């Protein structure tokens, strides 16, 4: 059974929209619980389909990790591979992280100042 994470997210969104527009009755409570049960069932199916922990055939154990470990020092010139990946190989990602933090602090200050 192929359950994509996107399908589960869409299901959750539909459930949230449905629940939001229902009036406050016992039916709403039962309906919410049933929907939560269905969503939980699909999430558990997704968990059951995940690859086993530590398996050599898992998707993250590809040639990329071997390349980083073997060529990392020659490529980046630093002994700390984590910093080498963060600030050299994946510098664009780190810039994105910094931007996210910048936006978060800007939004927080704007919200606090507005009140």
């Amino acid at each position, binding site marked *: 059974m192929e359950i994509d994470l996107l399908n589960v997210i869409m299901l959750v969104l539909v459930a949230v929209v449905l629940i939001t527009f229902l009036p406050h009755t016992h039916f709403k409570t039962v309906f919410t619980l049933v929907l939560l049960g269905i969503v939980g069932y699909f999430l558990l199916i997704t968990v059951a389909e995940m690859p086993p922990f530590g398996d050599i055939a898992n998707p993250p154990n590809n040639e990329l990790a071997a390349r980083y470990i073997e060529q990392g020092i020659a490529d980046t*010139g630093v002994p*700390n591979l984590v*910093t080498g990946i*963060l*600030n050299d190989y994946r510098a664009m990602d780190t810039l994105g992280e*910094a931007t996210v933090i910048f936006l978060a602090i800007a939004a927080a200050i704007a919200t*606090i100042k507005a009140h």
Partner: protein
Amino acid sequence: MEDQIVRIVCRLVVPFIQVYGIYVILYGHISPGGGFAGGAIIGSSMVLYALSFNLEEGSKKIPSDAAKRMESGGALTFALVGIVAIILGHEYLTNLAAGFPRGSFGQLISGGVIPIISIAIGVKITSTIVTLFYHLIGGEKLEDGNA
């Protein structure tokens, strides 16, 4: 709260925490650490100072304007370092391939732009933590005081 013991201990401890934070940032490419971790340590030392004294004393150490400049300056340095690589004729944020000096392996100045990026991130995260703490604790009072 006026607690002499807390204040004296804090005054003794804060410089050591900050030196450790600077060490974590500067040696981030040699030993475990980096800009995010070191910036968080320095920011936490300022939070400790503001907690043991009070908000006015704390916000005098890093004023709101200085924090804004640190925040923007760190992000801009990071972005401009990437643009230097474009000017040298390579892709954005290229490091050693763009001709930045490799330095001697394992020394403080080595690895091209990696230490510069670490320092920029460290300054930025310090300012982030300090600003967020001061604003969340002080709220409108701090803003009125500075305006």
